[in-house]
């Protein structure tokens, strides 16, 4: 693809902290290379804001290679921007053209309070994991991995579910701010493996109870989460979560 430069207008959500009212600020950014990543484009803007004595735009990022789940942002109404199966850090400026106006908002959900600007607190996800998203193992020498036989299909499905990076785009995309895709991925990757069986009942019950407590909405199966997930987690995991939850409750 031909390299090009562009001038853009950014409408960025600025908010001092979780208590204060936020508002949009408009910035012009010029001479942006089509080969820059989206976050590099914001870095350029921040350099300029700092140089001019202003307050830089706060946003989450870490690995910048699409695996850590830190970057967030809703770009023109799409969590992680317009590209499918892509995190914000892997979104490149060739997705935009000269003269575009880009609206950048934080992930919005009561359960994800804004820390500052585009940064939100996703601690609710950590507390859901603490409520059951783990297995208990004995200490000592590691067991030989090949000693436990696992069905190929289950291993593949578990691996696909484990690809969830916990970024929260599913919550941001859902009209109900539901966390079901995240929880379903975390329940599924353990429920599909033999190591996950002993704690399966408490796991799903505990994680759903915590999810409800955190103030996420409920799932109405619109599947916007699946469409926006940068790791393309399937909503079939939500069906599995529902099955696990029913089994956990209907058993004695």
């Amino acid at each position, binding site marked *: 693809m031909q390299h090009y430069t562009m001038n853009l207008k950014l409408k960025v959500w600025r908010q001092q902290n979780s208590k204060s009212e936020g508002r949009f600020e408009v910035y012009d950014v010029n001479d942006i290379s089509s080969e820059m990543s989206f976050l590099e484009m914001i870095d350029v803007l921040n350099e300029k804001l700092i140089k001019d004595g202003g307050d830089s735009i706060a946003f989450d990022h870490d690995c910048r290679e699409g695996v850590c789940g830190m970057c967030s942002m809703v770009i023109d109404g799409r969590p992680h921007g317009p590209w499918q199966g892509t995190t914000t850090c892997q979104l490149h400026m060739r997705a935009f053209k000269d003269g575009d106006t880009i609206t950048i908002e934080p992930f919005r959900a*009561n359960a994800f309070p804004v820390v500052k600007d585009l940064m939100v607190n996703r601690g609710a996800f950590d507390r859901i994991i603490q409520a059951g998203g783990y297995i208990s193992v004995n200490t000592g020498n590691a067991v030989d991995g090949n000693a436990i036989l696992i069905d190929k299909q289950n291993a593949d499905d578990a691996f696909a579910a484990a690809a969830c990076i916990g970024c929260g785009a599913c919550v941001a995309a859902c009209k*109900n701010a539901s966390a079901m895709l995240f929880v379903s991925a975390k329940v599924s990757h353990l429920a599909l493996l033999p190591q996950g069986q002993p704690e399966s009942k408490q796991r799903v*019950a505990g994680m759903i109870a915590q999810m409800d407590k955190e103030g996420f909405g*409920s799932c109405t*199966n619109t599947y916007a989460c699946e469409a926006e997930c940068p790791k393309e987690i399937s909503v079939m995991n939500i*069906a599995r979560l529902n099955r696990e939850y029913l089994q956990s*409750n209907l058993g004695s």
Partner: protein
Amino acid sequence: MNWSQLFSSSIGKKIVMALTGIFLIIFLVVHCYVNANVFFPNAQENFNRAAHFMGTNLLIRVTEIGLFAGFILHIIQGYKLELQNRSSRKSRYAVNAGNKTSKWYSRSMALLGTLILLFLIMHLVHFWVPSRFGGLTEVQYGNDPIVFHNLYAQMQDTFAPMWVVVVYILGCISLSWHLLHGVQSAAQTLGWTNKKYTSIIKSIGFGFSIIVPLIFALMPIFIHFGWELNLGSLTLLF
């Protein structure tokens, strides 16, 4: 975990929506089948006899109580969930992805449900109230001593003005969209979907959502224009 914990959880509430939804779908099938008498020759007698059976059979009358309970539970729970879900995002987005990531009717179940509720109230006033609380003319057939409610005549009166027919068709269109999301959503909530069954469930849901409301929509049209369908010796059970 006890029962109250199950049904007060977010998944439990959805299970209530799914189960009551499926119950109401079964009702639609029965209602559609009984009413299909209006399409065939000798519609007045056949339909009135079928309506008489539905109105006097003990099992059906007991099930009717369950049906009202199912409707009320589905409606109240639906509104409660909608309010709860709306309040889980206090600060709204300036730009929404809209139809790029989900279907409009999937996002509008409460709106479609409200339209169906308004239709339902009108429909009950048209037919259920007069058949339970009086106001219908009566008719007898041949040597049969039973005096039947002439519910068929009530239909002819109701569907005489074209605008009523149009409103009924709009009600059926709302129902169709509601079902288009509802059938597959219920299956997903109950955990029936997986790689193997999803496409089958979606196809059945799609077919049902089109065919059943279409048959319902044809009824007021047939009555209004006085059409009948002659399939020779083929008749309905009733």
